[in-house]
Structures are given as structure tokens and as C-alpha cells.
């Protein structure tokens, strides 16, 4: 049974991860004569629950805070507020040493497959590194054995164990990154744009691999991407972010068939479809303008400067997340208007 199904039936299943009102601010030094710091609100009040085996897709444009959110959850960046509860334990603000016991269960895969691998280490050592940190009791031979098994699992030939990252193509490097994240048998992996740097024909290979591993090991995933088609394919539930704020959260059927937030609608209609007939007929909802500076976000609803529905209320009052139905929430004052 998939995570989404469990979620919908509201069984007694406990969420594996609960994030409440998470904020990650970066202090920015501004001003010439009189120095002052102003907060850049990269993530400003994000809340969600993640269930075992579930995939939460996080979409948004560059600068919307999706990568910062992933790092804030994993405590790779210290949150400025809110809570992150992992299996009943508050982990927000824990030091690196205190986090160590949770690191085994929480892993990450990065976007740039080659840049995230140390060029001076063999791929065997790269994949084994988490083991040397977390399972120092293993003998060298045991470690190698585990690495070989994992390489096979992610579709790499175990005989390549002594090669260096530059000898591999982008897709293979991403497999190495996946193997490194999987070697400790984590329960949650944050995938931060794992296929964006890959060629189209290779993207599908990596997406299939991640999905297979999820089915085999019952992983939960937070899948961060700007590509709405891939997010639709891999996720059970999807969160749309804009300037660090949640715009809409829904299971994938509702989000794509029935988007309620004007930003979600614009995002979906902006994606070009690989179908000339549909593309020519399509009425595209083109958003005017560009993303406002996150240093001085608009008052009220952060999306209002580009929103076709914006009215006075939007400038004064920040919309709360409201229920469309049990599996669908939206932050818009006027979501009921079509």
C-alpha cells in the first residue's frame, strides 16, 4: 500500500516527520553608512506531515526556498523558528554531534552529480564514507561487501569500485550519489533536484531507480524539483512554494486536475506539453513580471504582485492555509472564484 493511500484512509499511522511553521532566515547586511541586517526570509512558515513510504513533491521557481526547506529539515541549515519532529523527537536546532544519531535515517541527494562527489576519492570510498562514520565496527571487507551490494542495487557494476568520479557520466555519478545516500538504509531521503542536470534520456533512468528503491525499502521521500511533470510522476502529495511561503498542498490528482491557487494554475499552464496539437490550442495563463526580491517581499499575500485575482485585501492580509477538502489546502483569499 502506498503512503498516500494510507494517508487518505486516516489509519492510526503516525507521521514519520512533522514540520510546523518552519522558518529559515538568512541575515543580510545592508545599508552603506548605517549598517543594519535585514532577514532574507527564504522559508517563512512551512508546515506538513510526511508518512512512511510517502513522497512529498516540493515545486516552485528558483528562489522560492525549496532547497533551503530541504536543508532546514535536515538541520544542514539552522532553522530560525518552528519545529521539525522526526519520529517524535524535536530535531530543530540540534548541534552536529547531537544530530549524528539521526543522520543515519535522514539522507540527501544533490543536484549536481559530479560536484557533490570528491574527485580524489574512489567511488568505493565515497559510497563507504557514511559507513565509516556511522558503523566503525565494520571490518574493511564487510564494508566493501556492503558497498558492492549497494552498487549492484543502483545499477553500477561492482567491479568499478576502484574508479574515480571523473570516469563516470552524469547519470552514473547520480547513481553513485544515490548509493551513498542509501548505504545506511535511511528512512527519509531529501532529493534536491536529482535529475535536473541530466540529459532527458537519463532522467527517466534515475527517476525509475529512485522509485524502485522506495518500493523495496519503504523509503519516505521529499522530492524537490522545478519540473512539474517529473514531480507529478513521482509524488503522492505536492507542495507549491512561492517566495518561501506555501501556496497550495494537495495530493497529485487534485493538484493537477483541480488547482485552486492562481500561482499553481499559472505554473501548470506554463509547462509546454510535448504535443503540437494541444500546445497550439492551449490557452496559456502567462504571469506578468518577475519574482519580487525576497528581501522586500510584498505585504499580505506574497504572490499578489503577479496575481490576476489580486485585490485590496491581498495587500493587507496574509492568507492562511484553508481546507478545500481533506487532502487539499490552499492559501488564497479568493480560491473559490474561478
Amino acid at each position, binding site marked *: 500500500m502506498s503512503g498516500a493511500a494510507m494517508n487518505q484512509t486516516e489509519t492510526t499511522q503516525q507521521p514519520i516527520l512533522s514540520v510546523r511553521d518552519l522558518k529559515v532566515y538568512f541575515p543580510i547586511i545592508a545599508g552603506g553608512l548605517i549598517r543594519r541586517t535585514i532577514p532574507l526570509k527564504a522559508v517563512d512558515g512551512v508546515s506538513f506531515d510526511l508518512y512512511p513510504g510517502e513522497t512529498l513533491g516540493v515545486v516552485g521557481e528558483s528562489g522560492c526556498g525549496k532547497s533551503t526547506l530541504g536543508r532546514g529539515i535536515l538541520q544542514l541549515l539552522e532553522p530560525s523558528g518552528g519545529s521539525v519532529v522526526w519520529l517524535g523527537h524535536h530535531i530543530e536546532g540540534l548541534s552536529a554531534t547531537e544530530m549524528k544519531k539521526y543522520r543515519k535515517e535522514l539522507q540527501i541527494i544533490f543536484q549536481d552529480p559530479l560536484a557533490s562527489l570528491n574527485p580524489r576519492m574512489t567511488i568505493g570510498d565515497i559510497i563507504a564514507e557514511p559507513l565509516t562514520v556511522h558503523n566503525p565496527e565494520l571490518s574493511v571487507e564487510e564494508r566493501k561487501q556492503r558497498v558492492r551490494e549497494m552498487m549492484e542495487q543502483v545499477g553500477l557494476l561492482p567491479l568499478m569500485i576502484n574508479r574515480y568520479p571523473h570516469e563516470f557520466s552524469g547519470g552514473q555519478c547520480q547513481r553513485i550519489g544515490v548509493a551513498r545516500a542509501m548505504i545506511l538504509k535511511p528512512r527519509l531521503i531529501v532529493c534536491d533536484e536529482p535529475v535536473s542536470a541530466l540529459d*532527458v*534520456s*537519463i532522467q527517466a533512468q534515475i527517476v*525509475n531507480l529512485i522509485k524502485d528503491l522506495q518500493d523495496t525499502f519503504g523509503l519516505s521521500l521529499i522530492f524537490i524539483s522545478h519540473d512539474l511533470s517529473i514531480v507529478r510522476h513521482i509524488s503522492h502529495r505536492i507542495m507549491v512554494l512561492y517566495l518561501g511561503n506555501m501556496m497550495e498542498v494537495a495530493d497529485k*490528482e487534485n493538484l493537477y486536475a483541480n488547482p485552486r491557487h492562481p500561482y499553481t494554475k499559472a505554473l501548470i499552464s*506554463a509547462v509546454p*506539453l510535448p504535443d503540437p496539437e494541444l*500546445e497550439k490550442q492551449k490557452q496559456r495563463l502567462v*504571469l506578468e513580471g518577475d*519574482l519580487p526580491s525576497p528581501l522586500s517581499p510584498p505585504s499580505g499575500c506574497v504572490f499578489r504582485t503577479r496575481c490576476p485575482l489580486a485585490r485590496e485585501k491581498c495587500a493587507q492580509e496574509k492568507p492562511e492555509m484553508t481546507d478545500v477538502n481533506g487532502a487539499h489546502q490552499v492559501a488564497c483569499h479568493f480560491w473559490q472564484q474561478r
Partner: protein
Amino acid sequence: MLLEIQNLTTRFSTPEGEVCAVNNVSLQVEAGQCLGVVGESGSGKTQVFMSMMGLLAKNGKTEGIVNFNGRQILGLEIAELNRLRGVEFSMIFQDPMTSLNPYLRISRQMTEVLVEHRGISEKEAAAKAIELLHLVGIPEAEKRFRMYPHEFSGGMRQRAMIAMALLCEPKLLIADEPTTALDVTVQAQILDLIAGLGRKLDMATVLITHDLGVIAGLSDRVAVMYGGRVVEEASVHEIFNSPQHPYTKGLLESMPRLDTSSDKALHAIPGQPPDLQALPAGCSFEPRCNYAFARCHAEIPELRTIGEGRVKACHLEQIS
């Protein structure tokens, strides 16, 4: 025919040996038409047009015929080429920040082209440049005109690049991954802009991209490249509705679609893109091809006609 590329081959000499980036490529673009060129990194899609523009790196050598408006332009002297580049045909690139000079105001970068090519005064050039900034949808064009590139957002920079490319009203605009560095909502704006300008100015466009979605809405014809060769060329409808090369078919099937939902695994193309330094003896797609048979391994398939205005480079008679 506005642009006719015949048997273009481009080689680079590298310390590891010679790399054949473009191999015997022929393409045509009619006036006012949009040709989409699709391929992955290393497929040679950009190098075809870099060769045409005379913009190859120093270690690159090219041979073949490129006729623009009936005139062979390959191998022209730089001075001669400069009379054509930016005037008869222009090119815009993926990353607008690296194509704009960060030290110069937009005004200087834009008027330079006109003063150089058209011999008009600074003042006239400024008026024309501002008019074009309006045309590409830059708000407050007069004010923006005096700004530096870093004061522009990514989408705005790409608009400015397009405006610069259009200053001399070229007959052909070559856009190399014009929206790859942009967010989807901004991509939609830029694609609409390119399509609209093409119609308004009766300008032909070549759209080089890895994104089949981008091609679908804009192109009239599509050429698919793999391993430095054109492997299939047809009308946009034929490419998307009945692809005849296994690579084209594989690409279309491997993309998840936004408008359908499926829990099935994606049809990934197995294997890796070819190493241009060690291309197989036969078809370069053969190691990854589900349809491959003995002949594919031994013999490079020639591009052959398989219908009206339709070619493919594949030994297979037909794929269903």
C-alpha cells in the same frame, strides 16, 4: 531557401585525439519558418550553428556548404562575416549573463551594433534600441536602457538579448536553448515572445533545445540529432505523432507527461549517450536501441527519404 546547410562536418582536435562533433549534417530553413533542433548534450546541435556563425573554438575545423540567401558563407573572412552576423542572422544563447558585457550599460551594448552596422547616429540608434526594448516587453524601457545587465532579472536579460539580436532586423534568428536557464513562468513569456516576433517580423527561427515540449508549440519542422548526426527530420506533427527513429520514439516515451497520471515506471532509454571519441562502427544509437539487429552494428545508416519531406537514418524499415 533561406538557409541551406549541406554536408557540414566539424572536428575538434583535442589532446585525447580528434573529436567529430558534427558529422555530415544537412538542414534547411525556409523564410519565415521555425526549425526545431533537438538533441542531448554532445549531440552536436549547437556546434552546427556555431560553425555556421564562424564562432568555433580555435581547435575546431569545419567543412561543408552553408548557403544563406544563395551565398556560401562558410569560410568567409572575419570582416566579410561581420557584415552578415547580427544583420542577416543573429544568435542568442542560453545564459544571457555570460553573453552581455557586465561593465557596459545596456544602452552602449545595443547602440554599438546599430552604429557599426547601419552607420546611423548615436541618437537615432538609441531611439531604435528603446523601441525594440518596448517590443520585447521590457517595462520602462527608457529607464532600463541606461542600466547595467546586473540590474536586470534573468528573464529581462534574455529579453534584452533578444532585442539586441533583432536590432538590424535579421531574416533568421538562431536561439540556442533560450529558456533553459529560466523558470517555467518566465520561459512561457519568452517562448510567446519569440513566436510572436517571428510572425510579426516574418523572421525565420532556429530553436535549439533538449526540451521536446518547447519544440512542440513553436516549430514547423523538427530535426533530431544524436552523436553528431541528424537521425530524423520531419514536420512537427509527424515527429510527435509517428516518430520513425527509435531514438525519437524513446525520447518521447521517456518523458513523464504533465497531463497524464501513471504509476508505471517510465520507459527509460537504457545506457549512456555516446562518447564522441569512441563512436561505434555502426549506428551510434545501436548500443541503446531496442530494435537493433546485426546490420546496425556493422554499418552506419545513411539518411534516407521515408515520405514527403521526411528523412531518417535508421536501417529499420518502419516502427509501429
